[in-house]
């Protein structure tokens, strides 16, 4: 014999399941809303990012605050999965021993 709490919980769970499908957006819309929330009027292109990616990655590697001097690159990396993958791969390739001192 289930207790009252168990009965209440089963009723609550039933309502949750019953109504969830009525007002929850599909995953595509959630992803789209997230990207819209991060959308800026002016965004730089993949080519723009590629042009400075080596410079950007070295700055990150040195621990500099790239949000201050390259915010548009950072924003693009948040929006573009391909550029982000290239950024992560390049960053992981850098080792301190490779540094001799850029111009």
């Amino acid at each position: 014999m289930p207790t009252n709490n168990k009965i209440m919980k089963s009723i609550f769970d039933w309502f949750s399941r019953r109504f969830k499908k009525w007002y929850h957006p599909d995953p595509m819309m959630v992803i789209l809303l997230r990207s819209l929330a991060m959308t800026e009027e002016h965004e730089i292109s993949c080519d723009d990012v590629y042009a400075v990616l080596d410079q950007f990655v070295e700055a990150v590697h040195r621990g500099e605050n790239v949000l201050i001097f390259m915010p548009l690159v950072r924003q693009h990396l948040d929006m573009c999965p391909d550029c982000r993958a290239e950024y992560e791969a390049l960053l992981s390739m850098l080792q301190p021993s490779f540094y001799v001192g850029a111009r």
Partner: protein
Amino acid sequence: MTNTRDNDTWLKDLRAGGAQRNAALAELHTMLIRALPQGLSRLLSPENPEFESLIEDTVQETLLRVLNGLDTFEGRSQFTTWAYKIAVRVALNELRRRRWRDVSLEGLEGDEANNGAARQFASSDPLPESVVERAEILQRVQQILAEELTERQRAAMNAIHMQGVPMEEVARRMGTNRNALYKLMHDARLRLKRRLEREDLNPKELLEMFEQ
């Protein structure tokens, strides 16, 4: 392996002929062979039978591009970081091509999500007031998406965000390039955002509401 040359020396040696250039190429080859597996470790297991050939092919292609592109190096980073950047682009493009070459993009373009959303409002069962309000807003947003996004934009978004298809591959299938595709997506996002704003809908607030 330590980088024994500064940027000017790399450029001078690679522009020189004969043994001087060969020595620089050999050093760069060795550095790439050592560093590239680290860069690809999250994307392809070293145990994969294609791993070694991918590394070697990438390095060869990278050396060619480096030699052809010496004049485009602006010295804003280490020369080796610039070369690694080229290697990463070559390797990831090849990986994307291999991984998705047999996948039909048409098969990724289903509009099940929108159909599902339409079905959500098919019933006439009574709902609590807050749920009704949320459902109405969701319906408005769905309507805006349907009105503002072209089929091409919807297909691209679905492939990239839902199926995880790389933008590079989606762009290739669409007969365009990644740069143009990003612009297409940015234009679409901007148009949607402006339309939502005109209708007093804020994406962040919508997310918060739907995620409650």
